[in-house]
């Protein structure tokens, strides 16, 4: 059995994750070995929301595997503007391509779309839902810098709407990881996610905080996310809250020397530029890891590879 689609990190076992990360490391070490793996493969990119990194790294990954992409372009220039349903769009584009990558503003969009197509479909973000390929590159970066077991990680910022956070938190329950969630009260993890984390783990690995201060010294990894202005009804409230969840060199004085700082990017002012040049900063490396990790995922999904166990349709 294998995964036909990659919709959420919840569907992935520890074995699945390790298979992808090991393969990504192999590709990272010698990309030329897979340069012709998918010479006749066309990947359809359907991005109903703006994206730079995710879209470009999928495109790069497919091309580095020898294939190519066809891109729906922006929603404004597509038939979606004429009122076409997502179900129709994916059924049409699947006829042109060997696989689909979908980003959509609605939660559950990838789950629904996958019910209408036979080619592999990869969720590249569905509203506030999931973003499993970002998770895989996050895990890859964590493994390289701090290791995935015996890990203490702080995840800070917008935990309510941050799909990268939800996906990462689910995936980390497969490992011996203590997860500290740091956010203003209004942007705490959705209760659904907390419920799931407790279902997957006994809850002892999960703690919620409203401040970084107490927990910072114990962290191996600090994963920072952007608090978006539009989540707050007024500018003052945003400024007040956002300021408490920004980090600079002074903040990190209390951290372990070994601390790895990550961010899914784009950042605005959550991480002061002065941290970029320190050995703590791993966010650009993290973004670069998107290519080998997505190459590994695409190759495994498009090759009918049986190495990722389980079946997402069951």
């Amino acid at each position, binding site marked *: 059995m294998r995964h036909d689609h990659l919709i959420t990190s919840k569907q992935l076992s520890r074995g699945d994750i390790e298979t992808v990360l090991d393969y990504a490391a192999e590709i990272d070490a010698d990309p030329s070995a897979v340069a012709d793996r998918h010479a006749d493969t066309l990947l359809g990119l359907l991005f109903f929301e703006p994206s730079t990194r995710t879209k470009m790294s999928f495109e790069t990954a497919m091309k580095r595997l020898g294939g190519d992409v066809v891109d729906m372009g922006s929603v404004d220039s597509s038939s979606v503007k004429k*009122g076409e349903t997502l179900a129709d769009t994916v059924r049409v584009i699947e006829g042109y391509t060997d696989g689909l990558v979908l980003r959509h503003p609605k*939660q*559950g969009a990838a789950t629904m779309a996958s019910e209408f197509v036979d080619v592999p479909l990869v969720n590249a973000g569905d*509203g506030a839902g999931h973003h499993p390929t970002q998770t895989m590159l996050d895990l890859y970066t964590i493994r390289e810098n701090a290791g995935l077991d015996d890990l203490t990680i702080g995840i800070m910022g917008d935990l309510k709407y941050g799909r990268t956070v939800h996906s990462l938190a689910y995936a980390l329950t497969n490992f011996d990881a203590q997860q500290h969630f740091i956010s203003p009260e209004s942007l705490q993890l959705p*209760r659904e996610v907390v419920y799931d984390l407790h279902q997957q783990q006994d809850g002892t690995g999960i703690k919620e905080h409203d401040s970084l201060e107490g927990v910072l010294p114990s962290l191996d990894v600090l994963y920072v996310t952007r608090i978006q202005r539009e989540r707050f009804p007024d500018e003052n409230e945003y400024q007040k809250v956002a300021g408490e969840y920004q980090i600079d060199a002074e903040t990190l004085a209390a951290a372990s020397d070994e601390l790895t700082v990550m961010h899914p990017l784009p950042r605005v002012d959550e991480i002061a530029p002065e941290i970029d040049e320190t050995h703590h900063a791993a966010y650009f490396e993290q973004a670069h890891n998107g290519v080998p990790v997505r190459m590994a995922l695409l190759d495994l999904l498009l090759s009918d590879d049986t190495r990722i166990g389980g079946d997402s349709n069951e």
Partner: protein
Amino acid sequence: MSDDHDHHDGNDDHELRVSKIRDGTVIDHVHGGQALNVLAILGIDGTEGEEVSVGMNVPSDRLARKDIVKVEGRELSQDEVDVLSLIAPDATINIVRDYDVVEKHRVERPDIVEGVLSCPNAGCITTGDEPVTSRFSVLEDGVRCSYCGTIVRDEIASLIDT
């Protein structure tokens, strides 16, 4: 036993507010006030000519006040009635033929309910114009949208897709 479905709470005939049916289904021990939701879940709105009797807030031994719904001429299957467990967990189902109760059973919680509830999350793909049937998995203490993952524990009746 011909009028069993009217007497199992020990009510006397003078308290009988809902007429007996000849053939069909009696849904009894519905929590007071939920009868119209029972009909909504079953998709019965009277437009197809069904003969339906409803008793609301009838005195009951088991529940202080209960609703009772009688549908003439239609025997509801276990699958059809199990979804009622979400709003009427104590409901009993009586299948009546020629005024006799020939089958009597409880509702059981299903694993999945499809096409009955609508997701309250405005950001869920099922709330748009997509050709998709709503699907919820049934948890111990609520329901969960199979698409966006939203969990609803209270006021499930308010999600009934009418």
